[in-house]
């Protein structure tokens, strides 16, 4: 039958596996660890912001005199935490989890494939990601510390930063390579390895979202690779791609050739980084759609419209990048162009959200833990999306650019947005991966407190941003306009601690359920898509017999059936 996995040695079965399921688990575990690191970094930053120049309680001695003498966070260390929090959460956490973890594990199952098109390439993608992550983390220990010029690494500042920035750049080269290899694998797998009967418009929306995301990763990352290469050339070989003529640093003129342009970096960077934010959200939309369809027991309203919107969104995402650059002085004509495209791109997002919202009407809703997270996603993403409008309009952006309003906007989308979707996906697909369900009570506790504290952390930041409090400030109280909103920082810190503590029931639940969770059969959620046909967990090769597909992905509550769901691979009505 080809099930030779039981004859593989340990290192080939678990460490250097070419099985998409094992690789998906590797990505998931690694990414969750990185996200925990990112969360801890955030807690240190929020302490400093809430109680400027106060020693960190208890753990202050951990960071050494170079970073936090007497437990007081130095501005340089704060900047490192800021730059690396963003880098780690985006490139080592959310994307590897949503694409490398969920995409790798679930997508081949949902299309009926035995594995990805290029299993060895898949394995290489994971290990290149791992090496990139190690480079990123170890940069904290080099002289001068980690990258500290923002996750955006703008020159000239980043060009002049210490060695940690060079490590960041090399780390990015590894991460980008991993991403590119992975995206090729996803695209070929989705186009070529769908089983018989599974036409494109019968695909689960999750597969569509991974498909479009892969195109974004494939085509948008290379310009960031270029930006990284050029910044490496500037730093290591003293070129002046980004260094303008006549630059003076601490009183001395720089001895470089000059003639460069810092804006070149920004254009190259944002050409990737804008599609990157859609990479952050699209898999989440995919996960949410699967869970909502399953828990309303009726078809998704407007599936085809959602697919067209998704593709249009992917296309438009390449045309909006300079809305991150409204204040660089590129002129009103350029700003006008990007403002128009930015307004246009909000339309498909709204269509996606509205379709999901309208789907709820008349549904027979089951309020289990994955559904709670999925339902919460909808208003949280709505807040994040709507608060993007005053940022996308160049006029109002003048007041809000680089303030806490921006931080609140994007965190609402990624944190109670994407991360809630990822939690939902873990609770939903845990039975498929392990053959056991997670505990519902712990799940609901995790959800309830995470939801409250997410809002507690990020909602006050809108107020701070409107008051003009800038991003990346080590001590806001040094600015008179930031003093009135300073009490909010204490509130945010306490909420952040609550958010951190709220993850404990999840961690306990996760590990406890692996060993002692209630055992279930292959389809505990009574779902229609192909991954629930395979055993839990699926064997090497996934399916005992290759499924054939007869209908679309969300045939719930079909009349004349004796059950409220009609699996895609079931031939007749019986």
């Amino acid at each position, binding site marked *: 039958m080809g099930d030779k996995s039981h004859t593989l040695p340990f290192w080939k079965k678990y460490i250097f596996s070419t099985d998409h399921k094992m690789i998906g688990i590797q990505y998931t575990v690694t990414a969750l660890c990185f996200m925990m690191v990112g969360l801890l970094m955030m807690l240190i930053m929020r302490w400093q912001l809430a109680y400027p120049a106060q020693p960190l309680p208890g753990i202050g001695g951990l960071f050494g005199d170079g970073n936090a003498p007497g437990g007081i966070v130095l501005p340089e260390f704060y900047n490192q935490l800021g730059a690396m929090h963003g880098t780690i959460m985006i490139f080592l956490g959310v994307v590897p989890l949503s694409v490398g973890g969920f995409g790798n594990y679930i997508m081949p199952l949902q299309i009926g494939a035995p594995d990805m098109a290029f299993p060895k390439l898949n394995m290489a993608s994971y290990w290149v990601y791992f090496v990139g992550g190690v480079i990123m983390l170890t940069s904290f220990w080099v002289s001068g510390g980690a990258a500290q010029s923002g996750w955006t690494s703008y020159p000239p500042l980043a060009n002049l930063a210490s060695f940690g920035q060079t490590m960041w750049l090399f780390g990015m080269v590894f991460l980008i390579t991993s991403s590119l290899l992975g*995206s090729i694998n996803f695209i070929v797998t989705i186009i070529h390895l769908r089983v018989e009967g599974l036409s494109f418009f019968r695909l689960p929306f999750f597969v569509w979202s991974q498909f479009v995301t892969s195109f974004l990763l494939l085509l948008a990352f290379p310009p960031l690779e270029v930006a990284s290469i050029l910044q490496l050339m500037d730093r290591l070989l003293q070129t*002046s791609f980004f260094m303008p003529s006549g630059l003076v640093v601490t009183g001395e003129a720089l001895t470089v050739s000059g003639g460069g342009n810092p804006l070149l970096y920004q254009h190259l960077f944002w050409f990737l980084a804008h599609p990157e934010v859609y990479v952050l959200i699209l898999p989440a939309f995919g996960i949410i759609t699967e869970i909502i369809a399953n828990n309303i027991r009726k078809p998704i309203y407007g599936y085809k419209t959602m697919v067209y919107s998704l593709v249009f969104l992917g296309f438009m995402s390449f045309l909006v990048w300079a809305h991150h650059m409204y204040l660089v002085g590129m002129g009103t004509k350029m700003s006008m162009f990007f403002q128009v495209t930015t307004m246009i791109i909000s339309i498909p997002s709204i269509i996606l959200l509205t379709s999901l919202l309208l789907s709820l009407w008349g549904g027979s809703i089951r309020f289990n833990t994955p559904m709670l997270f999925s339902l919460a996603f909808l208003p949280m993403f709505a807040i994040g999306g709507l608060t993007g409008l005053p940022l996308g309009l160049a006029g109002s952006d003048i007041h809000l650019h680089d303030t806490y309003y921006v931080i609140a906007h994007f965190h609402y989308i990624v944190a109670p947005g994407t991360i809630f979707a990822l939690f939902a996906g873990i609770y939903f697909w845990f039975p498929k991966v392990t053959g056991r369900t997670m505990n519902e009570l712990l799940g609901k506790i995790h959800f309830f407190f995470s939801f409250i504290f997410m809002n507690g952390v990020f909602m006050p930041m809108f107020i701070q941003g409107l008051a003009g409090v800038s991003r990346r400030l080590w001590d806001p109280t040094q600015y008179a306009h930031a003093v009135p909103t300073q009490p909010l920082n204490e509130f945010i810190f306490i909420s952040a601690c609550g958010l951190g503590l709220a993850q404990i029931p999840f961690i306990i639940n996760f590990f406890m359920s692996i060993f002692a969770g209630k055992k279930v059969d292959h389809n505990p959620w009574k779902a229609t898509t192909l991954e629930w046909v395979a055993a839990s967990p699926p064997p090497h090769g996934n399916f005992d017999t290759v499924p054939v597909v007869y209908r679309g992905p969300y045939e719930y509550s079909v009349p004349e059936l004796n059950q409220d769901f009609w699996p895609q691979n079931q031939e007749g009505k019986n």
Partner: protein
Amino acid sequence: MSVAEIRYIDKPHPMTGVTNSKLGIWCFLASEVMLFGGLFSAYILLRIGAGSAWPEGSHHLNVPLATLNTLILITSSITMVMSWASLTIKNFASFKKYMSLTIFLGIAFLVVKAFEYGAKFEHHIYPSENTFYAIYFTMTGLHVLHIIGGLIVNLYLLFPGSGMWNKNPDQFMGRIEAAGLYWHFVDLVWIFLFPTLYLL
């Protein structure tokens, strides 16, 4: 029918008409277009931005040597196709001959490049000299890295990898075709690089 087999490794998919590896290599080439496209865009932005202050470096480059390199690469693309064509008529000896020629021409390209770079370094002209040399060395340097990558793949396919011809000739031919597409792309990048850097 084996249930654990990945399809379309050596036979084309009915909808796309290509195998997995051919679709995959085209996707990779799309990303490479974006990579070199990003560099060409950087060149355009830097040159237009500098206006009259642009350091006119193309005059100092060795156009005859670069022309020779252009001919070398174009010829190597032809020999690459010939090596693939030899497999279609099941002439393995001819495949080895043409693949060896392709590799030899690739190495010749690198040798010429070494002379070019060497001449610049002898005169203490490095990427840090000015923005023209910065973009010149970066673009041609990245191109050189791509040539080296292609040579490594071709060497693998000529020596250890050629055993696949006996076990699965269709899949091996697919690999040569994929390597050929990549090699043509690297040639095409040079055909854009040459006029942009040396002639304009």
